[in-house]
C-alpha cells in the first residue's frame, strides 16, 4: 500500500527541510522524501500550494474516558484531534477514576486500541486519586505503558511529596508535567484578578498563584535532577521565571495554550463561560509576554489543554460553570492566525513547538518526517479562512472559547501511520 504526497511545501525541522518536496508513504512509514518522486502509488495527494508538516503532537488533552463519556470519549476526542491535524495526544489522568493504577490504565489502553482514530499516549497520575497525599507506583505504571506523570488539574501542594515524586519519575525516566497552581492563593477565583475581576464583580485569581508555584516546581525539579514540564503558562512572571531557569542551564520545558496568546481577560466582559479557563485569561501585557516567550524559545511547546464540558456545565452562571475550553479543532488555526500570520514565528519554529518539541519532551518517536518514521502527516491550506461554528465541531462538547471567530489555516488531510484519518 503506497501513498504519494506531491509538490507540498514540507517543513520538517528535525531534518532541516523547509521547501517543496514529495513524500512517499509505504506500509504506514515514510519510505522516501525528495524532489520529483514518481513511484506509482495507490493514492496520490496533490499538495501544491499546501504546507506539509509532521502530525501535531498535543501533549495536553482531556479525553475524559473513562468516567465522563458524556463530555468526550477516546473516539470523539481523537476524531476532533484528526480534524485539527493532531496525530498524537497525551491523555491527561483526571478521569473517573483517575489514571493512578495499572488496572485503570489497562482499561484505558483497551479502549484506545478499540476506538482511537490517532495515537494516544497516556499520562499517569502522580498521586493516588490526584489527591496529593500518596504517590502512585511510577515503575508499575510505566510497565503499563504510561508516557508521563501529572496530577493535572491539581498541584501536589506538599514540597516533600513533590520532591519524592520527581525523584521517582527520574528513576523511571518519565517526564513530570506540573500543573503549577497554588489553590490556596487562587482562593476560589474564577477570572484573572485585576480590573476585569473588579468590573465583572467576580472573585479574582492572582498571578502569584501560578508563578510562585512554577518557581517552586522548577526548584524541586532541579534538586531532583528530574525532567519537568510546566503546563499552560499564562503569566508574564511565569515566563520570566522559566527564562531564568533555562539561562542557568536547567532543561525545563514549558507549554502554553492557544488561548493564552490570542485572548485576554478583556474578552470575557459578557460573561462568556467558554472563556472561563484555568489558569484564567490574563491581561494584554501577559499575552504579549507569552508571545515573547514563544519567540525567544522560553516556551518551547504549544498544547491545546482541550477540556470538554457539557452544555449543562457551561451554560449556567459564570462562577458555577466548569473551567475549560475545547481546543483540538482550533489550535493549529489559532497558531497560524496569531503567530504565523503576524510573522512572530516561522513555519519552522511552529512545527518545532507543535510537533517536534513535544515529541522530544515525551521521549516518543514522533514529530519528524524522516525516512522510516511513522507517516504522521498534516497537510494544511495556510491562507484559507474559516469561522468557528458550533455545528461544525466534531468534539462531543462544544465549549470553544473561539466560537464565532474567524481563523486562518485549514487542515486538508491528516494521516496517522499512513492512514488518512481526516480529509476536509
Amino acid at each position, binding site marked *: 500500500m503506497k501513498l504519494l504526497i506531491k509538490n507540498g511545501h514540507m517543513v520538517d525541522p528535525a531534518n532541516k527541510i523547509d521547501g517543496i518536496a514529495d513524500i512517499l508513504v509505504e506500509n504506514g512509514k515514510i519510505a522516501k522524501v525528495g524532489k520529483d518522486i514518481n513511484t506509482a502509488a495507490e493514492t496520490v495527494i496533490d499538495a501544491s500550494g499546501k504546507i506539509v508538516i509532521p502530525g501535531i503532537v498535543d501533549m495536553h488533552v482531556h479525553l475524559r474516558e473513562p468516567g465522563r463519556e458524556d463530555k468526550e470519549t477516546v473516539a470523539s476526542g481523537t476524531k476532533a484531534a484528526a480534524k485539527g491535524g493532531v496525530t498524537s495526544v497525551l491523555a491527561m489522568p483526571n478521569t473517573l477514576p483517575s489514571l493512578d493504577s495499572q488496572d485503570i490504565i489497562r482499561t484505558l489502553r483497551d479502549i484506545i486500541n478499540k476506538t482511537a482514530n490517532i495515537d494516544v499516549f497516556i499520562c499517569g497520575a502522580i498521586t493516588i486519586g490526584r489527591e496529593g497525599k500518596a504517590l502512585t507506583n511510577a515503575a508499575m505504571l510505566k510497565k503499563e505503558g504510561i508516557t508521563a506523570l501529572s496530577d493535572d488539574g491539581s498541584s501536589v501542594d506538599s514540597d516533600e511529596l513533590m520532591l519524592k515524586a520527581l525523584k521517582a519519575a527520574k528513576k523511571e525516566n518519565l517526564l513530570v508535567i506540573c500543573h503549577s497552581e497554588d489553590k490556596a492563593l487562587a482562593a476560589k477565583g474564577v477570572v484573572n*484578578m*485585576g*480590573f*476585569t*475581576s*473588579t*468590573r*465583572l*464583580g*467576580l472573585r*479574582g485569581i492572582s498571578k502569584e498563584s501560578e508563578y510562585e508555584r512554577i518557581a517552586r516546581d522548577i526548584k524541586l525539579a532541579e534538586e531532583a535532577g528530574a525532567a519537568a514540564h510546566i503546563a499552560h503558562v499564562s503569566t508574564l512572571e511565569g515566563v520570566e521565571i522559566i527564562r531564568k531557569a533555562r539561562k542557568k542551564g536547567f532543561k525545563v520545558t514549558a507549554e502554553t495554550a492557544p488561548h493564552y496568546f490570542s485572548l485576554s481577560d478583556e474578552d470575557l466582559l*459578557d*460573561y462568556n463561560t467558554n472563556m472561563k479557563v484555568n489558569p484564567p485569561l490574563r491581561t494584554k501585557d501577559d499575552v504579549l509576554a507569552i508571545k515573547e516567550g514563544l519567540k525567544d524559545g522560553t516556551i518551547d511547546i504549544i498544547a491545546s489543554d482541550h477540556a470538554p464540558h457539557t452544555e*449543562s456545565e457551561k*451554560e*449556567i*452562571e*459564570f*462562577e*458555577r460553570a466548569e473551567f475549560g475550553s475545547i481546543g483540538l479543532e482550533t489550535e493549529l488555526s489559532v497558531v497560524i492566525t496569531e503567530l504565523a500570520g503576524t510573522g512572530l514565528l516561522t513555519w519552522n519554529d511552529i512545527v518545532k513547538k507543535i510537533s517536534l518539541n513535544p515529541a522530544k519532551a515525551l521521549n516518543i518517536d514522533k514529530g519528524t518526517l524522516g525516512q522510516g518514521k511513522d507517516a504522521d502527516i498534516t497537510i494544511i491550506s495556510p491562507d484559507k479562512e474559516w*469561522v*468557528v*461554528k*458550533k*455545528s461544525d465541531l466534531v468534539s462531543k462538547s462544544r465549549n470553544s472559547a473561539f*466560537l*464565532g471567530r474567524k481563523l486562518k489555516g485549514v487542515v486538508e488531510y491528516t494521516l496517522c501511520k499512513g492512514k488518512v484519518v481526516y480529509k476536509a
Partner: protein
Amino acid sequence: MTKKKTTKWAHKDLLGLEELSREDIELILDTAVSFREILDRKIKKVPALRGKTVVNLFYEPSTRTRVSFEVAAKRLSADVINIAVESSSVRKGETLNDTGKNIEALKADIIILRHNCSGAATMLARNVNISVINAGDGWHEHPTQALLDMFTLRQKTGKLEGLNVSIVGDIAHSRVARSNIWGLTKFGANVTVCAPRILIPPGIEKMGVRVTDDIDEALKESDAVNVLRMQFERDDSKAFPSQLEYFKNFGITEERIEKARKGIIVMHPGPINRGVEISSGIADGENSVILEQVTNGIAVRMAVLFWVSQAKDKDIKNEITY
C-alpha cells in the same frame, strides 16, 4: 410626560449602567420626574403597562427592592407575579435559563431578576427574548439602585456634573458601588471611594474614581456621601476589620458630619445597620435623604419598566452568529 425628541431607548434589557449612555440615563431620570409626581396624587395609577405581566424572580432574599419593583409595576397597571427561589443548593433543580424560558412561555413580558451570581442577568438576557431587568447580580451591578441615587442627588442639587460624591464601605463586594460609579462618572461627577484597603477591589481607579482610606479626608469636599451597608457575616470576611473597629474608623457619625461640608447629603441603599456603618442620629437627621430615596426608587423603577417595555429592538439585540 416630558419625552426627549432626540433620544430613543434601544435596550431590550437593563443589565447595568456600564453599557448605558449618558443620554439613556437622562431619559430614565427625566421620565422618573413625571412618575414621581404621580406618587403624590390621590389616585396613584397610570395605565402605561396595562395588560403586561411583570415577574419578580428573586434568588436572594430582598424585601425592599422586590416591594419597590412590585409597587412600581402596579402603579403602571401591570400584573405582577413574585417568585422567590431557594438557591442555597447550587446546581440542584432547574437552571436559571430553564426557569427564564418557562416564564417566557407563560407569556410574561418582563423578568426582574435578583441573583447572587455576578452576570446572572446578562446570561438570562442572552437566553430569553423577553426583557430582563437586573435587580442586583452578585457584586456586579444594581442599576436601579444607582439610578434612584442619581435621581435623588439631581433632585437635591439640581445637577450631577461636577458633584463630589463619596461612596463609603465595602466597595469590593458592592454592586451598588459599581453601578453608582459607572453612572455618576458618565455625568462628570467626581467620585471618591473610601474603605479599608482590604475592601478596595484591584484596578478600581480605572473606573475613574479616586481611592482613599481616610474618611474625614473623603468627606471634607463631598457634596454627598453614599453609605454602604456593611456585611460582617460574609463567608470570606476573615480579613475584614471588626465591627467596632470599622465604626470607629469609617462610621458616619455626628462628629464626622460636623466637620464635613455644610449640607452634605447622606444616602444609604438600605437596610441600614444603626451603629455599624451609620449612627442613628445621622440616619434620622436633617442631612439624611434615606427615606426619600425609597420613594424615589418607585418612580425610577416605573421609568425603567416603562422604557424597557417600549423597547423596539428585541430582534436586533443578541443576535449570535454561531
